[in-house]
């Protein structure tokens, strides 16, 4: 996904060092931004290009000289003269453990790139044994549009932020409970049709692990017919109203299986409403 491009007032440039390389970034840029500029690939899970960094997953941590603990690259702003290291033994250890802790407790089978990161950090999520506690639970299939499979939820908070004050303003879900029992929940854990959910699907758009997915995708994965190599993404404009949201239709075997919107679209920033996201059944007929 390309970065959101906004025309801002010119910003002061700040110099820092990342892995012994001098880097110049704009004032207000994050360490992650500096890493991206230098082509230093940094794993992220809870970071989203359209959301305020939550820095909850901690897989992007880096070492900053003078800081006792490691710092999250996704949210920490670059300061003049900052000395950042992204591949020290401490950083590698923390990233490896974060991946192992997540992988041992959550189903990451549909999380993009996670196997690559396991290899890079030599992570072995099975090392805690077979009795390690997990968040395994049946998927919540309570409506025809999308499925919540919280066995795959890493609690990145992105769906809550997208549903709440950062985009949709519906506040249908929040984090409930505490500690390992924390979970994403409607009020009183009621099924979606009884909740305030308006089925905009903006939570699905930002979910990094596939815990939230279109019912079509969920069913196809279940019956073994989900085939990404037979899928094509086509952009078009939503036909319903005058706003003109860009739709990115994922099509498999001549059937729409997923609808998104480009995150750099100045109209949607990746967000849609129920009509754009789910109102395409007539196309298939």
């Amino acid at each position, binding site marked *: 996904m390309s970065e959101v491009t906004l025309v801002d007032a010119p910003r002061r440039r700040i110099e820092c060092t990342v892995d012994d390389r001098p880097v110049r970034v704009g004032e207000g840029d994050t360490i992650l931004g500096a890493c991206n500029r230098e082509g230093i690939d940094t794993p992220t899970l809870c970071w989203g290009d359209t959301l305020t960094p939550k820095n909850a997953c901690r897989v992007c*941590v880096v070492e900053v000289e003078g800081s006792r603990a490691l710092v999250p690259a996704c949210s920490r702003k670059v300061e003049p003269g900052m000395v950042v290291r992204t591949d020290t033994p401490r950083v590698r250890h923390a990233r490896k453990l974060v991946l192992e802790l997540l992988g041992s407790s959550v189903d990451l089978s549909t999380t993009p790139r996670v196997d690559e990161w396991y290899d890079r950090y030599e992570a072995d999520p099975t090392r805690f044994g077979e009795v390690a506690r997990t968040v395994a639970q049946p998927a919540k299939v309570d409506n025809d549009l999308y499925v919540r499979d919280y066995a795959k939820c890493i609690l990145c908070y992105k769906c809550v932020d997208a549903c709440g004050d950062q985009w949709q303003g519906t506040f249908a879900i929040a984090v409930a409970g505490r500690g390992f029992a924390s979970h994403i929940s409607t009020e009183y854990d009621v099924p979606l049709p*009884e909740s305030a959910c308006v089925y905009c699907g903006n939570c699905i758009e930002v979910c990094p692990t596939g815990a939230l997915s279109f019912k079509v995708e969920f069913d196809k994965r279940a019956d073994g017919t989900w085939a990404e190599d037979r899928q094509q993404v086509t952009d078009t404009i939503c036909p319903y109203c005058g706003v003109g949201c860009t739709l990115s239709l994922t099509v498999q075997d001549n059937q729409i299986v997923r609808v998104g919107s480009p995150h750099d679209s100045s109209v949607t920033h990746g967000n849609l409403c129920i009509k754009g996201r789910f109102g395409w059944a007539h196309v298939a007929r």
Partner: protein
Amino acid sequence: MDLQFQGGEASAEERGALDRLLATQAPRRDLVLPALHAVHDAVGWLSPAGIDEIGRRLDVAPAEVFGVATFYAMFSTTPRPRRVTYVCEDIACTGGAHLTLDPSTDAHAVLPSPCLGLCDHAPARLELDGGRYVGPMARTSTLRGDHLLANVGTTAYGDLVAYRAAGGYRALARSFEVGPAAVVQMVSDWGLVGRGGAAFPTGRKWAAVAAQPTFPHYVVCNADESEPGTFKDRVLLEDDPFAIIEAMTIAGFATGAAQGYLYLRGEYPLAAERLENAFRLARSAGLLGQDIEGSGFSFDIDLRVGAGAYICGEETAIFNSIEGYRGEPRNKPPFPVDAGLFAKPTVVNNVETLACIPHIVLGDARETKLYCLSGAVASPGVYEAPLTVTLRELIESAGGVREGSTLKAVLLGGAAGAFAGPDDLDVEMSFTALRDAGLSLGSGVVMVIDETVDLGAFLARIADFFVDESCGQCVPCRVGTVRQQEAVARLRSGGDALHELALLRDVGVAMRDASICGLGQTAYNAIESAITRIGMFTKGAR
């Protein structure tokens, strides 16, 4: 906001509780926690209809109110009697041994609780009725000290005249004479460091907030004393509330704040009652409110009561809790002095830290510290002693190790602290000496462990504590504390020590390095020190 409420019609009791809360103040998001308390106290639990009613009155989505309600251990979202007895299942009271609870009845719930801050009354129980304090009434522990504890054990807690007769409010008058900058200077020059556990220089916090051009500024008193084995702040608040109120007022004057919040843990209902009364007396005497004592300075304090969450004592989690959100810590920076409560410059000080302030302003401060002696000592209690006291002297002042017992270890600093062994007894109990010795003073916990304690069970309880109290926000702590708990359990049942110790270390280092806040960063400390300093689980591992 266009919010949906489908939880049903609130009962007359639930509505009445909210009517009373909102009779004198406008609805605001930061009243979520007081509103949850009001409804919970009225009917004993939080029903969907009651939560909906809170959301409706305060314009907050029910999913969010539910998320906040389920964050706190003392709130129930299933039916429960109003009358509740909490039984401490924590290390000072049980040594980690399994707790057998009396059966609950339809009229009376009996529940296990983490440390109740009544370790001087071990085994501790706390009885509440509709949130109000019922017992234990008998307070028989040793509270020894003539400086910070001078008013403790007197009736000054409910008597402003007595407090003033004992020298109270002279420090505030002196502050008005010398001005805010001079007060900050005095605190800096004296070298006061925070006594909640982190030992950060108080003067630096005050100076930073005083210099902020953004207003308003806030003063927060952190009375969420929850570190297992700590009860000194409870004693100060119960017996000397005016001293803390006076100190907060001085802090407000020195840092340019007009509003303070005293955040008290939910397990301290007696302190809450006495504080409410003290606020009332101070207001009617013109010592809180507009134009205090004709100085032109105005300051008031709101009491906020937690509901069972150790994490809310973290200096940024306390802001989220006060603001009506889940008590999850914030990432730093920004630091509280830059953007704290309501994103404004904020001073957060521990109760004991504040108790030092009037003495510093009056120039009669002595270098003493409050130590919480618990466990296998003859007379558990709060002991005030110079920071040069040794561990051995402290234990002796509490009557020594309980008769017939042998000292096996001493836990210093609580669950986030470290174990001292029998060879460490001559260490000086100061911040620096303990740090140099690889130990930690923390919040002043001195928990003596004798040979009757099963240290494995003790460590397992510490591991359970961190699992229960992790907020769940960041991965290293949310999952790491669980993996730590599992590894300790396997070690206790004879698991492969080499493998498990390596696992514990790997997880512990990641929690320390990568967690958002101090809870995760210290969750491995005690277990690590038990392994490295007193040789737990290492038989056959070397």
